[in-house]
């Protein structure tokens, strides 16, 4: 079963455990500035939102890459950057409508979420369930259940 990261901003407290887990997994350092998932703080509204690559089916980054350094991992569905091939031209960072591919000047390559090969560290680290890794075809299941419950006037 393919899975996807499901992000629920209303559960996020802005603790950045996900950013540290991501950078530790990929850089062996606790370094939010190198994280592929980012948490945004909309201060005056009192709201937080984690955001990362949604692994588009028709991935702009993949199609735009002139050297075919971005490939699909058939097992996870993730669009992964092949560091050996990436030339750091940054065209993918322009092509991505969501800003989730970014250049890393330390390596001279781009970096993006690769779902950690099927065990996303961010989801494991999140203390509130704001980031979960669920059936890619059922990301709306919880929301549907909540609405169904409301329409019935049922209790959980």
């Amino acid at each position: 079963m393919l899975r996807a990261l499901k992000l629920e901003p209303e559960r996020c407290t802005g603790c950045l455990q996900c950013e540290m887990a991501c950078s530790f997994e990929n850089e062996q350092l606790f370094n939010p500035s190198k994280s592929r998932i980012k948490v945004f703080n909309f201060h005056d509204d009192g709201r937080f939102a984690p955001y990362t690559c949604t692994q588009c089916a028709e991935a702009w980054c993949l199609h735009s890459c002139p050297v075919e350094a971005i490939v699909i991992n058939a097992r996870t569905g993730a669009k992964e950057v092949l560091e050996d091939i990436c030339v750091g031209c940054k065209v993918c960072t322009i092509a991505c409508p969501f800003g989730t591919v970014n250049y890393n000047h330390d390596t001279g390559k781009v970096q993006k979420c690769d779902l950690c090969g099927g065990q996303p560290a961010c989801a494991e680290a999140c203390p509130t369930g704001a980031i979960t890794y669920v059936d890619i075809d059922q990301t709306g299941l919880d929301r549907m259940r909540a609405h169904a419950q409301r329409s019935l006037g049922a209790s959980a």
Partner: protein
Amino acid sequence: MGWTRNVMRVNLTAGTIKREPLNMDWASQYLGQRGLASKYLVEEIDPKVDPLSPENKLIFTTGPLTGTMASTGGRYSVVTKGPLTGAIACSNSGGFMGAELKNAGWDMIICEGKSPKPVYLYVENDHAELMDASGIWGKSIWDADHILHARHQDPLIRIAAVGRAAEQGCLFSAIVNDLHRAAGRSGVGTVMASKNVKALVVRGTKGVGNIKDPKAFMQAVNAGKKVLADNAVTGQGLPKYGTQVLMNVINEIGAMPTRNMREVQFEGASKISGEAMHEVRASDGRANLVTNAACFGCTIACGRISVIDKNHYTIVNKPQYWGASGGLEYEAAWALGSDTGVSDLEALTYANFLCNEDGLDPITLGSTIAAAMELYETGLITREHTGGLELKFGSAEALTKLTELTCRGEGFGRDIGLGSKRLCEKYGRPELSMSVKGLEFPAYDPRGIQGMGLAYATSNRGACHLRGYTVASEVLGIPVKTDPLVTDGKAELVKAFQDATSVVDSTGLCVFTTFAWTLNDIQPQIAAACEGDWSLEKLLEMGERIWNMERMFNNAAGFTAKDDTLPGRLLSEAAQTGPAKGKANDLHKMLPEYYRVRGWTPEGEPLQATRTRLGL
């Protein structure tokens, strides 16, 4: 290793900045943050130095776990000699500044001397520079934050700053980072402003590594996170109600200091409680509380984000206060509320916003206003002094107006800015200051919680709950329940809490973890991250060493056993209601025993044998 091993030394007088290696001998004895920076301070300054002179130093310090994934590992402290007390001051803050500083590659910043003109310190990884602060001097912390973000065109910089109160010499000014997290107590912001430093601006992208055993570290971190999640206080109570979970609990046991500590229960407590912050207001259909929020790396997330009712008289036509911002924590709610007799939740939230906006310690502010209200009642302070303001207990208008004036250093706000000790001396009734060594009490009345009386009397930074929180044992039963109304065994209990807290404050972790964690949960995280022997025994000995070192600094600064006391009110005026009815604090039964278990002389001086044992 945990440490970056880099110390930044900023000579403000000369305008120079140098890197020096962290003293690893000291690090092996004092670990980091509170312990290690206090060691630097006591080695580098004369204990008798005037806290607001260039000869005092101001140290920003992280711990070895700051910036790591250890839950709550985002803390930093500011260590200096405090202007309110004349004692050693260590003030701890969360938010995101500590981790940013560590990510920039620094364990510590030592500021010495005094800049000839207002400056701010800009740090971007290895690059550090003193920059002209003329455009932000005279501005509030919130305005300065906005201006600095615009000037540097970088949304990711982190800012810690002082407000107008500090510039105007208010003695209990805080250093506020990330708009509403604060190194709040004992006037560390006043020291910063006295050095003509308006702000610390940091951007760190180097990451925090050098973990001795990464695999063992992540195992210990994950085990610790699970303990916090499974505990009723850290897993449920604090996320839902914040520290305000305590308001109704402490009121019920008769330990809620009320109206300048004349009473021990507040009739308005439920109206200003954590539960009340969840209630939907009839006026605008919203609750005071918008959400809970975490500091860096924290899996508890006790922070309160609140919104004031736009129709409330305090903020009509003031759109700068219409957005969500840092809401009431228990200490602020108590000091601004019950101690002044004010039960208007919106007014308290507004006063709290002001404390964040201009950097005031809300505990000292509320207590000083409460003392002024009692002086007003006695007729020693009149409307002539206050500019026409009626300082009656329970007056939300008096509270909010005085807070505004204190923030700006205007009118009677200048007198409030002295703190309660100097205010009460000025108006001829020094005994009405509810303070120890010049620092005002926090929210636990020592008549209803006897051990806290001893903890306050002996705290190295003056009356403070964060130096030995025996409330945990006496009220909440953590780690074991003791009777809050008896004094037996409290000397040992206070010592144990003081030593353990000295350890926690030296790690980079938050002391609130200890609602669930003991040192048994913390030790594996330290041992896996840091080089050297970090057994439980060594950590406990280190905690005791830190406590004694701070004590010896204070003794050398001129404090004696006479200063280990409480105001007469708490020693002789019995509680009139609640479970502690008829009881005052029996400090005299605990203090000699405390000196004995500490290995101190009856005059409160560490014995030579104690000093030798601890390597002091």
